[in-house]
């Protein structure tokens, strides 16, 4: 298992040190860090990185909020609890490409119902701001269920006695949530956020289907894909791949620093 990921990763590291373009295979030669320099000095990379971070931060924070609402609804709803859980699994299970298509058609000015519904005109995916809105909302729709289910599992771990005691002490629902439930759920929230952030950072399918990176919505995964598969420039593309990998490591390290103590404490218990 490790071999299948570690080997390609090392191979990517190796390739990234070469000038290697499949359209000109004869010109393969060692260039050291030159590929990294050209990626890091290109505007495309930094633009894509900030796009990806924007999408990641916006969608993950919305998912956390909405996920909590969903989780509370799923926990409290007495009627139709099974229905809600089943319905929520549909976005989780659906193919990302299909979800992206469905939302694209919904926001489309000719086929879509959104404009008719809101009395608006205009092509959402033809402008940068609204295109980001559509992409982020597709991500949120698709992945909130996952967040909600993790949070729900965390909610059931909060001891009832603690909440009852807080109630007896006169804490209102709001205070109970923020002072009792949230601190108790810190480890679960940490895990859910970590999973989702790393997952959101590699976003590719949605953007590819909805804009193909047009209107300045290109993400880092798309930059890598375009260099590797579209332009067949393996050296440059591998440098992008390695940089993405380093970003993911950095994100993971940040989370482990922020939530790490909670996570390991939980493991020992």
């Amino acid at each position, binding site marked *: 298992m490790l071999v299948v990921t570690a080997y390609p990763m090392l191979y*990517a590291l190796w390739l990234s040190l070469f000038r290697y373009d499949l359209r000109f295979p004869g010109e393969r030669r060692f260039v050291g860090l030159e590929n990294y320099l050209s990626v890091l000095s290109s505007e495309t990379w930094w633009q894509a990185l900030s796009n990806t971070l924007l999408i990641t931060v916006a969608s993950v924070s919305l998912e956390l909020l909405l996920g909590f609402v969903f989780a509370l609804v799923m926990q409290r709803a007495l009627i139709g609890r099974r229905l809600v859980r089943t319905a929520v699994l549909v976005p989780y299970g659906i193919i990302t490409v299909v979800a992206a298509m469905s939302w694209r058609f919904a926001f489309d000015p000719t086929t879509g119902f959104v404009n008719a519904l809101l009395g608006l005109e205009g092509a959402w995916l033809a402008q940068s701001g609204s295109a980001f809105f559509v992409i982020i909302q597709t991500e949120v729709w698709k992945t909130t269920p996952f967040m909600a289910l993790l949070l729900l599992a965390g909610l059931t771990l909060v001891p009832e006695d603690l909440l009852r005691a807080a109630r007896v002490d006169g804490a209102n629902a709001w205070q109970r949530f923020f002072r009792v439930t949230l601190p108790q759920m810190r480890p679960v929230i940490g895990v859910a956020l970590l999973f989702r952030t790393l997952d959101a950072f590699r976003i590719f399918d949605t953007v590819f289907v909805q804009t193909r990176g047009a209107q300045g919505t290109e993400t*880092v995964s798309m930059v890598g894909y375009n260099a590797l598969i579209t332009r067949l420039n393996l050296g440059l593309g591998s440098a992008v791949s390695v940089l993405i*990998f380093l970003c993911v490591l950095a994100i993971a390290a940040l989370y482990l620093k922020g939530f790490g103590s909670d996570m390991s404490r939980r493991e020992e218990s």
Partner: protein
Amino acid sequence: MATGRLERLLWGMGSAVVVVYALLPVVWIVSLSLKPGADLGDQRFLPRVASLEHYAAVFHDPQFSAALWNSLGIAGLSTLAAVLLGMFAAYAIARLEFPGRRLMLAAALAIAMFPTISIVGPLFDMWRSLGLYDTWAGLILPYMTFTLPLAIWTLAAFFREIPWDLEKAARVDGATPLQAFVHVIVPLAAPGVFTAAILVFMFAWNDFLFASALTSTDHARTVPAAIAFFTGSSRFEQPTGSIAAASVVVTVPIILLVLLFQRRIVAGLTAGAIKG
């Protein structure tokens, strides 16, 4: 208890909102797929008249049938392989105290969160020289890499709950290790194995990045890639109806899995994250 009733009503309304939000795009794409060609641009949420013309078109398209077959085959085989291998690894993790046990789980998790794009390039290069480009095996291998950790996590979480003393009891009664495993442990482990299989299948069924990068023809192209590239030929005349119909067709298996195994999927999704 007036507040109690009010509260219940509010939570009930909340559930309704959640259900509508979750199902909205699904209903929408179904409705779009049923609109006859001329009505595709009518901007209505529901079709005026329903027609199956797009479904007929999609099933007559040899590209789509090939993609559907590829998807089923590749996702099915990846699931089988990942779950079989995952069972042995998870068994070892749950049962045996060996050094690096925790490290193995952590590595599995790290791989599951690995940025897929980072290995697409090397695989593309390697597969071309090994002759695996645009083949089933060329997709099954990377799928296994990413689903094996998922399978191991889910299975390890389930296996830890199994009363292993039963195995010992069977051994005392004279069963061989293999017999003890097959007759005692397998029935107990089956639900976990099944859950892992569903999750793995969903992953392989969903993937688009590998499918689009490592295939080029009907030979191994799966449905997500086929749907995305339906649009490829012309930006201005999109086969909206066909895309919608194809989308509905590939969503049906997912909806069925969700309806039938709702409880299992929820358990599987949360098991790894909460108990891990």
